[in-house]
């Protein structure tokens, strides 16, 4: 097996790089030349680890879901990122990047958000550090993730609706990038997933790699081996999956399963299953797999889950897909909803809609009874209660 790693130009195989207009070059270049040095400095690591422990509540538990295991027919462990402060894995990266931004002398923080989890996480760390925070969010997402909009506002962030295109995550990302172009000196752009120009995909993956670092230790304690048979995670841009896979990328015996959002069905015209529907393209600064028309216009995706409603995928995942190192599955809106209720009733855990896609992936794999499977439960479902209640009452359009 070819080693999975990033090269010096920011490519995983054929995917990655930095396809950015010159206006962004100085900022991206500064990050590229300094991110590794800064993030592995003793003082940085000390503060980062301290906040992950005492502020976020890490390590997040690795929970053996007994009743779900019986139902599925394998040993299912849930990596409880939903128990993190602010309710999802996004806080790991937000803390990392804001600490980094401070060390770069930046005073103004911008972010894009889909489900609002990354926006809340970024607003939270900015409140903690006394930094100005501006979050771009698609107008459609503002509506469907109202609790998170309220949280961001209470945290003191300014939420700016992105009104172009499909008014979801892609457009919020465009607006954030334009903001960065217009504010080149005082601003750091905290990207929320393993997307964007190099070094973002690598930097975000490293900040999220705490997830698999902990899984290795926790599994060893619980099963005697650091290695599961399967790792399963949902993929929007791919940051919780990247964090879950990171320390296993080159462990051949561990199967890496990524679950994308099929929306109303892969071929329904309302889907966000990028690897199934996309082709090689450039989006938001990197070469990857992109959902697009024959003319190279980016397609407006659909998913019931705002965090997965994105027409691209990080370059690491494009490479895992192309090299066949990863197994790529998809789950529809309905399948995800069903899993959300299933987990809630079996285990008393209300998952985020995004994470419910990962759970739906479990139905599509052929397990042996003794297989050890770790699912990244990337976030909790508080933000999705409105959708869940509508589903319960049969009101979903």
């Amino acid at each position, binding site marked *: 097996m070819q080693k999975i790693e990033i090269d010096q*130009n920011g490519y995983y195989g054929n995917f990655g*790089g*930095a*396809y*950015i*207009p*010159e*206006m962004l*070059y*100085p900022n991206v270049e500064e990050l590229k030349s300094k991110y590794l040095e800064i993030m592995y400095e003793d003082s940085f690591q000390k503060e980062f680890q301290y906040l992950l422990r005492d502020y976020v509540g890490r390590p997040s538990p690795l929970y053996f879901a007994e009743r779900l295991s019986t139902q599925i027919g394998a040993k299912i462990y849930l990596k409880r990122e939903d128990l993190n402060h602010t309710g999802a894995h996004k806080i790991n990266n937000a803390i990392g990047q804001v600490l980094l931004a401070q060390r770069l002398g930046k005073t103004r923080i911008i972010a894009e958000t889909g489900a609002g989890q990354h926006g809340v996480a970024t607003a939270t760390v900015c409140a903690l550090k006394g930094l100005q925070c501006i979050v771009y969010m698609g107008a459609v997402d503002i509506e469907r993730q109202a609790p998170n909009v309220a949280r961001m506002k209470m945290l003191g962030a300014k939420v700016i609706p992105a009104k*172009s*295109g499909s008014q979801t995550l*892609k457009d919020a990302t*465009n607006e954030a*990038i*334009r903001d960065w*172009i*217009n504010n*080149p000196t005082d601003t750091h752009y905290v990207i929320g997933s393993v997307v964007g120009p190099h070094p973002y995909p690598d930097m975000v993956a490293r900040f999220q790699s705490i997830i698999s670092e902990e899984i290795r230790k926790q599994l060893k304690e619980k099963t005697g081996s650091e290695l599961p048979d399967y790792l399963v995670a949902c993929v929007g841009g791919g940051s919780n999956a990247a964090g879950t896979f990171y320390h296993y990328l080159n462990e051949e015996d561990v199967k890496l399963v990524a679950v994308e959002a099929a929306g109303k069905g892969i071929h329904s015209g309302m889907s966000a299953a990028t690897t199934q529907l996309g*082709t*090689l*393209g*450039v*989006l*938001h*600064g990197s070469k990857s797999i*992109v959902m*697009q028309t*024959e*003319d*190279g*216009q*980016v397609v407006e995706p659909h998913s019931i889950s705002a965090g997965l409603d994105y027409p691209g995928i990080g370059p690491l995942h494009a490479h895992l897909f192309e090299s066949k190192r990863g197994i790529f599955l998809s789950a529809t809106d309905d399948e995800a909803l069903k899993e959300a209720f299933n987990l809630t009733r079996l285990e008393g855990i209300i998952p985020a809609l995004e994470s419910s896609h990962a759970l739906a992936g479990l139905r599509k794999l052929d397990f042996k009874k003794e297989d050890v499977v770790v699912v990244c439960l990337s976030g909790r479902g508080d933000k999705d209660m409105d959708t869940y209640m509508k589903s319960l009452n049969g009101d979903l359009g």
Partner: protein
Amino acid sequence: MNRIKNLFDNKNKNVLNVYCTAGFPKLNSTLVVMKALQNNGADLIELGMPYSDPLADGEVIQQSGSIALKNGMTIKVLFEQLKNFRKEISVPVVLMGYLNPVLQYGFEKFCEDAASLGIDGLILPDMPQISFENEYGAIMKKYGLDFIFLVTPETSEERVKNLDELSSGFLYAVSSSSTTGKDKSFEDVEKYLQRLQSYSLKNPVLTGFGVKDKTTFESVCKYSNGAIIGSAYIKALENANDIATATQTFLASVIG
């Protein structure tokens, strides 16, 4: 024959490059707009290929692009419209766009087709220098297309010189770090352009982003070879009943 080189050989002051979006305001207005620009004093035309995610563009150009896409503009349709344009248009024309649609068309095929239609050069702001050097530069050269890099006030001297060396035709000086169509202080712009002048670059320099009227045109022309106007002209077209008249009025207000 190199039209861009000829242009600058004959005129190296107050060169006016005007940006328009293909397929805007109407699908079939592309050539009407180009003719109006040529007839009213544009020395060069930057023809924008609309894209769903134009990161470097402000609202005005974004809007024109969305309308053009809704109108049905694609690269294929554009090339069909440009089939005989050289019978009517003699000023140099550069295509401006983003890399993704060009990659989908096929980079080499795109260059081959554009060159055979009579296109003179390309501006692709998200083309990485390294990809230009390793891959795409040679293809454009093969078909005789100029490639124009952008530089900004934040671009280091060394990098400006590098990008100038790699560019041909002209160098695109972005007046300040911003998306298109933002207002800015032209005092700083003049200082920046003087700095660029002191580098003794190989290419002529055209200055764009924020140039919108006679005052700003004259300001950037003091220390560079000319200007690129985009958003202000698109705005003039937005409200136009008649493209020819609107173009005449607009250009007269800039260079008249």
